[in-house]
């Protein structure tokens, strides 16, 4: 197996990266790590359970706004406290939303999640006094590892303690997800994806398992969303907009939904490609749309599918 070796090299590279590359590129790693967490959860739903949510930005938004509300309105600055609160808020929202959504599959599931996402977006946009409207809210610098890091300027804070904090969260999230997909629960999800009828007849409660997967992915999205806010120092309603959900699906597809590490690769490629394209050509959506069209038509396995060559990915109508 080459996987452990590759993983070791990549981990070492990420660990020493802030020390060797310019701060700008190190700060680009921050959204990668935040989206990495989001996508790990998203792919539990997409790649492993076969449900495509077009409203996942809802939970990213919940996580980001949870952090902003805690730091600016409630005076809570500990990131170690913000993340569990964000996760809890997402779980509380995902419980009823998920219970309703998992009654449907395919296009109806996608539409229902999109509608819920837009409900939250409109709430953020219109209830100005609570949410700051279209300007959003500020996200104050959270304290990490029990310290304020007061002597650090913004860049030093982001490429120093915040970088390693995000990395720690990503590593823990990856390990937990690895356990989840390898557990009997994860196997049940794959069975549900491939043959819901058979899963049902083997005694697996299909809606219940889909609901669990939905909630886990929502929690991951909120944790990632909370990580996304401090580098920009601001949260706004576009975090919950439907095109943001679309970009999340895009990233997973870019990396490869059929593999465990595909979504992480997708987040990495998306962030750095976006930065590169934007620096030479302001119309990045045009390029990215073309890339997405290419992936959908020619390489549905994404980047991982190009590397792996384990035979074609199953993409036709079932």
């Amino acid at each position, binding site marked *: 197996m080459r996987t452990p070796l590759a993983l070791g090299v990549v981990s070492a590279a990420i660990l020493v990266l802030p020390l060797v590359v310019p701060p700008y590129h190190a700060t680009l790693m921050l959204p990668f790590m935040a989206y990495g967490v989001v996508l790990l959860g998203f792919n539990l739903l997409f790649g492993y359970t076969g449900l495509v949510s077009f409203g996942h930005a809802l939970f990213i938004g919940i996580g980001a706004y949870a952090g902003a509300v805690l730091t600016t309105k409630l005076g809570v600055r500990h990131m170690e406290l913000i993340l569990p609160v964000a996760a809890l808020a997402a779980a509380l929202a995902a419980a009823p939303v998920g219970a309703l959504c998992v009654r449907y599959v395919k296009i109806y599931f996608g539409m229902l999640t*999109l*509608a819920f996402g837009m*409900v939250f977006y409109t709430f953020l946009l219109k209830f100005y006094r609570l949410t700051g409207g279209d300007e959003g809210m500020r996200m104050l610098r959270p304290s990490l590892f029990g310290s304020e890091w007061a002597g650090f300027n913004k860049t030093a804070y982001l490429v120093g303690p915040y970088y390693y904090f995000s990395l720690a969260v990503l590593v823990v999230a990856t390990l937990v997800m690895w356990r989840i997909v390898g557990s009997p629960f994860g196997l049940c999800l794959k069975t549900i994806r491939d043959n819901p009828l058979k899963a049902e007849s083997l005694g697996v409660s299909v809606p219940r398992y889909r609901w669990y997967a939905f909630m886990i992915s929502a929690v991951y999205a909120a944790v990632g969303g909370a990580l996304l806010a401090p580098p920009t120092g601001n949260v706004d309603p576009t975090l919950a907009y439907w095109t943001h959900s679309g970009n999340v699906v895009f990233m997973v597809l870019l990396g490869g939904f059929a593999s465990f590490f595909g979504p992480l690769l997708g987040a990495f490629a998306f962030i750095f490609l976006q930065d590169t394209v934007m620096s030479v050509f302001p119309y990045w959506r045009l390029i990215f749309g073309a890339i997405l*069209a290419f992936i959908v*038509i020619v390489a549905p396995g994404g980047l991982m599918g190009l590397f792996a060559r384990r035979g074609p990915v199953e*993409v036709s109508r079932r």
Partner: protein
Amino acid sequence: MTANLVNVLMGGVFHAAILFLVAAGLQLVFGVQKIFNLACGSFYALGAYTGISAVAYFTGHGGPPILFVVPLAAGGLAVGLVGLVVERGLLRFVYDRDETFQLLLTFALVLMLEDVIRLIWGSAPASTGGLYLAYGQARLLGATVPVYNLIVIAASLSIALGMGFLLTRTAFGRIIRAAADNREMAEALGVDMRWVYARVFTLGTMLGTLGGALVIPATAAMSEMGIELIVEAFAVVVIGGLGSMRGAFLGALVVGVLRSVAISVYPELEMLLIYLIVIAVLLWRPRGLFGAATA
């Protein structure tokens, strides 16, 4: 009081007339090709900008401003031919794929078209200038309504009737309905599906671009107008029932009027109310309030 109510209602019906055109295109494509076309909003935006350019060219070359609807509608319809390029160039490769991939391909179109519009027309809002009131205002039960709004409502109604006629009374309509009902059987009976798909998608696109062109004298075009409209059109087709033309008509009325009423009564509720209705409909009657399942 009556005047105010009439104003609100007429504003809602005008919006509904535009929404119907876009939603009808969405329904037609979904009914026959089973693709939920997220790019229908982008086609709408494309129609809006093309309409502005066509009108500017027309008046710039001495055309009488009173006839501005002619280049407006012509431009809106002509740019709809982009649908043919999209269908032949992209969509035809994914007809046998899982619907997730079809949806994502239309999302790719959304991304591309948004920047194509920025490339061609820039990011600043554009408008047709003062032509909106070129036909004057009509008095209606004490309220003043721009005559242009009435023209658009009439045009949309005639298109609705025309679509009804096309689908139920013509040979092409029978083929469309057959293809929507049972693709394999239609093919077995000798229908060339490539031909049907290309035409249906082009027709669907033209409805969207025409909607965009017709709305534009009343508002200003922005490059984000497409991604904002798609969620409204989405609400329309869900409330009306996916794939149903009658559903698009009634759904557009519900969304257009409710939104207009909500804005005048309690602005914060505006789209929130619509999405809550969408969720209620999806949960309670996933086939839509007025839904037969097919076009």
